[in-house]
């Protein structure tokens, strides 16, 4: 019995520095809160999709989380696609529901990357995604790999360091309106330009945070969602594209799979980028967001930077984007980082975003990218 999938519950834990937190604890807390937000009980969950953890890695994380929660789902797997994981979890949950396999799927992620491991260890662990023989011997890390994209992108499309800085400033402006955000101090373009260099042209304030935090979403069959507490948010379209893993094997340094992933999602939803009222797009680095905004088609090549400096991503701009403060200023705790984008889109569509609410949005776009712009997953969500 197939039924359309809707998002019925969302929740995230406190984020930033959460003293005493554990990966499993953050996942369990987020899961219970998301199920409560949906007005369901944990016993209603028949599908569990987990992600991965750096601080408490396990071969079968989804079984570990279900065991800890005391639930026995009939479908349970872990999904691992880096920053695309959260969107991929939602896409897979929707497919499970539309295939009639599950009724209520819990998609949950969480990690205590800030207090559970040293900053050096987190950076070193992330550098292991580099190619063992043809990248890692050269001292590659994630920021350096994105810097290679940034340098070429700037060269080809006239993007300047100030354009990138504009993204950090615009995102911080959003975070300042969000009492939960990890970073709420105002920053200026000069602050970004003066922050310490990480891998040229990227500076510290061009880079995402390292945080503790958990996040969970409940995806339900539309007919089962009649019994939930709040009106479901429809998953109107989803899409993926995977072009490479290592930056050395990327077909391009300026054009990425977000183009095809988003085109699929827009096509399945029957909408265009111009129809989107609010966007929550993966922003591991300022260049990540800029390249995605232009590859997806929200802006023409080379035009996002000037538009953003003029306020395009602000609440009253052409495309309010990363309204919670993104990975740059809200929080980034592994796969949960991408789930924060999903949750914010749902809150905006429900009208629950309080001081950062976009005026009555009907359509939201969410995008996650994993690796070095390698794995892409897009969602179009709607309020009916």
């Amino acid at each position, binding site marked *: 019995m197939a039924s359309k999938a809707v998002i019925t519950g969302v929740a995230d834990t406190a984020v930033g520095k959460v003293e005493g937190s554990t990966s499993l604890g953050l996942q369990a807390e987020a899961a219970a809160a998301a199920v409560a937000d949906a007005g369901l009980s944990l016993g209603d969950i028949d599908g569990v999709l987990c992600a991965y953890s750096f601080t408490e890695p396990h071969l079968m994380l989804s079984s570990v989380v279900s065991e800890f929660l005391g639930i026995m789902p009939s479908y349970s797997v872990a999904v691992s696609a880096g920053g695309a994981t959260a969107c991929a979890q939602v896409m897979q949950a929707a497919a499970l529901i539309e295939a009639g396999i599950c009724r209520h799927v819990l998609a949950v992620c969480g990690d205590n990357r800030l207090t559970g491991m040293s900053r050096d260890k987190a950076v070193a662990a992330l550098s292991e995604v580099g190619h063992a023989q043809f990248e890692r011997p050269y001292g590659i890390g994630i920021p*350096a790999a994105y810097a290679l994209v940034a340098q070429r992108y700037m060269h080809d499309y006239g993007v300047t360091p100030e354009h990138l800085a504009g993204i950090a400033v615009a995102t911080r402006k959003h975070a300042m309106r969000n009492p939960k955000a990890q970073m709420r101090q105002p920053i200026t373009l000069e602050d970004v330009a003066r922050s310490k260099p990480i891998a040229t042209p990227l500076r510290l304030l061009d880079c995402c945070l390292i945080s503790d935090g958990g996040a969970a979403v409940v995806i339900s069959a539309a007919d089962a969602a009649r019994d939930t507490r709040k009106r479901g948010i429809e998953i109107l379209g989803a899409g993926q594209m995977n072009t490479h893993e290592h930056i050395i094997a990327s077909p391009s340094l300026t054009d990425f799979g977000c183009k095809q992933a988003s085109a699929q999602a827009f096509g399945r939803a029957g909408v265009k980028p111009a129809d989107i009222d609010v966007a929550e797009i993966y922003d591991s680095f300022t260049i990540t967001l800029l390249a995605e905004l232009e590859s997806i088609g929200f802006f023409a090549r080379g035009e996002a930077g000037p538009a953003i400096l003029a306020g395009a991503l602000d609440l009253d701009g052409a495309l309010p984007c990363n309204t919670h403060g993104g990975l740059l200023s809200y929080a980034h705790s592994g796969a949960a980082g991408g789930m924060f984008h999903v949750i914010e889109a749902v809150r905006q569509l429900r009208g629950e975003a309080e001081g950062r609410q976009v005026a009555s949005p009907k359509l939201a776009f969410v995008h996650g990218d994993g690796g070095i712009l390698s794995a892409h997953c897009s969602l179009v969500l709607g309020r009916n």
Partner: protein
Amino acid sequence: MSKPLPQPDVVTRHFWSICKEGRFEFQHCEACGHDQFPPRLSCTACHGADLGWRPSSGRGTVYSFTAVHRAPLESFKADVPYVIAIVALEEGVRAMMNLREVDPQDVTIGMPVELFFEPTEGEYPLPQARPRQMYPSETLKIIMNSDS
């Protein structure tokens, strides 16, 4: 803690053993003519398995680069700032290398480079790049063929 070193496997053993002789080779598909790097078990264009090896002239240009100021591992901390470049070899394949013998401030996209082999703590030397002096006729050719 030492730097990550190449650990040759069944697919890459030829590449690394040729590096010991001071040459850089990439894979060439005998069926469809596609050139590729890094080495794979089959052709990424036609998925055929008939792969041979072709030598590079060792000449190329900087396709993109970054100067790393925050090392990902303890073993690279003494080297900062160091330059990582994606080098476009004149045969068309691209490879990651460190760019040596140059001030990071002076690196530009399109800069002509040449390969050399740098000893490591392990058995195999690493292909690396450094700025290349050009003859006037070659400069003209690069300007005429520039895609940048």
